[in-house]
């Protein structure tokens, strides 16, 4: 009797999960369906689940469209996302470790000064940031697109919390062996903290890939466009080409999905041990 209840409950849960999973997948399905349809199929009043004729040509058309440098923008986005991720990981993990482990009288004040910036909406400081970057001569350069975004208080916070919970014995042993902070960090801490690097790295990568407003204003030259800017250029012209827009959107999220699927188990592990709470 009890068993039956449990089994029914379990079956119900599975059904519910499958239904929810389908619901969550609908937007991806629409992206692909519309991306491979002709304009007529998308706007047809008669709904079809699959395009009447699957047009892989849309992808070729997208890359052949000279009005939008799509391949170039993909490359830019990849470069920016990789550089931003590596830079952020380096800077934020060092800072997080210093804050968590190195005794310093004002360490707490520094920490709260860093944490406080989390509460300042980015749009607030947008114009002065822009003027600052342009007075450095960084408009339309990779420097300007990458460097100002490297200092993520969120990443620093996560690293600090993680290192606070890091088993101290390992480091103590290293110190006894005469390793200073620097070598302890690189030889002992980093190799043992891979999950948190993967977790933060993935989050930063996604953020960098998806960021829109900053690249739009800094990347003035079309050769400095990122993929999000290229995408928006499809929607802002007076005539919108729906199929091209959707196929571009689908292509733009592909690299991310790959990164994501590869790293997601690390994210869970990283979050679990970082104590984001």
């Amino acid at each position, binding site marked *: 009797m009890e068993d039956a209840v449990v089994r029914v409950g379990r079956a119900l849960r599975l059904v519910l999960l499958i239904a929810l999973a389908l619901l969550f997948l609908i937007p991806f399905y629409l992206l692909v369906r519309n991306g491979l349809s002709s304009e007529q199929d998308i*706007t047809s*009043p008669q709904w079809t689940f699959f395009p009447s004729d699957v047009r892989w040509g849309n992808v070729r058309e997208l*890359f*052949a469209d*000279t*009005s939008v*440098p*799509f*391949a*170039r923008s993909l*490359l830019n986005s990849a*470069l920016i996302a990789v550089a931003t991720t590596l830079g952020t990981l380096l800077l934020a993990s060092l800072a997080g470790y210093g804050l968590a482990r190195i005794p310093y009288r004002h360490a707490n004040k520094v920490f709260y000064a860093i944490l406080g910036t989390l509460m300042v909406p980015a749009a607030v400081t947008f*114009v002065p940031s*822009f*003027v600052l970057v*342009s*007075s450095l*001569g960084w*408009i*339309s*350069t*990779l*420097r300007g697109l990458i460097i100002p975004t490297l200092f993520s208080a969120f990443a620093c916070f996560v690293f600090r919390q993680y290192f606070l919970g890091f088993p101290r014995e390992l480091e103590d042993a290293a110190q006894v062996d005469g390793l200073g902070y620097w070598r302890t960090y690189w030889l002992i801490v980093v190799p043992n903290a891979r999950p948190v690097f993967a977790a933060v790295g993935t989050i930063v990568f996604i953020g960098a890939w998806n960021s829109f407003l900053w690249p*739009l*204003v800094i990347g*003035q*030259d*079309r*050769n*400095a466009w990122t993929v999000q*800017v*290229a995408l*928006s*250029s499809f929607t*802002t*012209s*007076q*005539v*919108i080409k*729906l199929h091209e827009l959707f196929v571009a959107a689908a292509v733009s999220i592909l690299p991310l999905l790959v990164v994501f699927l590869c790293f997601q188990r690390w994210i869970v592990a990283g979050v679990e041990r970082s104590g984001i709470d």
Partner: protein
Amino acid sequence: MTISRRALLAAGAGVGLLTACGSNTGRGDGSGAGPKLSQWYHQYGEAGTEQAVKRYAAAYKKAEVTVQWRPGNYDQQTAAALLTESGPDVFEGGPTLDQIQGGQVVDLTDLLEGVKDDFNPAVLTPKTYDGKIWGIPQVIDMQLLYYRKSLLKDAGVEPPTTLDALVDAARKLTTKKVKGLFLGNDGGAGVLGGTPLYAAGLQLVTEDGKVGFDDPAAALALAKIYQLYADKSLLLGAPTDWSDPSAFLQGLTAMQWSGLWALPQVQKELGDDFGVLPFPKDGSGSPAVPVGAFGAAVSARSKHKEAASDFVKWLWVERADYQEDFALSYGFHIPARISLAKKADKLKTGAAAEAVRFTTDHGYAQPLLWTPASQTAYQDALSRIIKSGANPESELRTVVRKVSAELDRVKKKS
């Protein structure tokens, strides 16, 4: 950019992306003489426009001009860029009153010496402040009402000549599958702007700089726009907005308010089965069509103000052939020069000729004193009137108060 250029070239060349500009900095690689200038355009939707403006720029010998084609919110990008040294030298834009008063743009009065009268006054006036000219009108854009002759005939509806008739027609034309009228996905608050006021014989700002719609007729006209919405005669939430004729062409609506630029496409797809109208008059007013023009302006922060002004003069004053090409070969615009507009064959017959007539007889341009702050206040109120059925009188009272305060602010500065 600091990344390896060769890698980028290798990646880009295969897909033919490097047709545009080959350099990292956006300035041409060529060793052409003269200073380097950067020129900004917003992203035009019409195919070929970008290539055309690049061709013009390349033909200029006294400076090396690089064109930047800006997607996204153009006004905001130029506004931000004008604060810095790395902004454009030459750009198309209002320029706005605050840009003029803030000394961000260069006085271009001298450029028009002797030809000033050849520029359509409707679009030249909003570029003029303090007796000086701050932007050279490039081409005239105007908006008008498109309607499907066959659908009107089937429903037994005459092309509407009054606002009341428009409300009636839209209601009669609305069926389960087709809506009567499309004024944009927001119900018209965005695109209509001051048009209903001008149709009711009013204006946004008077000659002497006062609020021009502090009048009961304003509330009456706006209430009729609400009627359209309340009748469910308006198409809302279409995949494309008013600026794109797709909704009209796909048969989602029987009438659509759109731009002159849509005319070639409409003509191509519908042949004779369409007509055009100005926004119909209301009460004792007269029909109205909004006209506007981007002005070519020179940034005051440019390092080569002289050279930039010379280039603007060359392109937008001297090269009539380019001006005509730009106006009529890609999209569909009316040349800002009266002499060119008269000459153009494409504007002599059919709907295009009517559009030119509407522009001359009923065209109005937003006054320079109508600043974005006033525009926002008015547009918010219009949206509330149309979509939430807010009381037009009380909404307009608030707008009048805000606009007066804004007009006081800008007058204080001059």
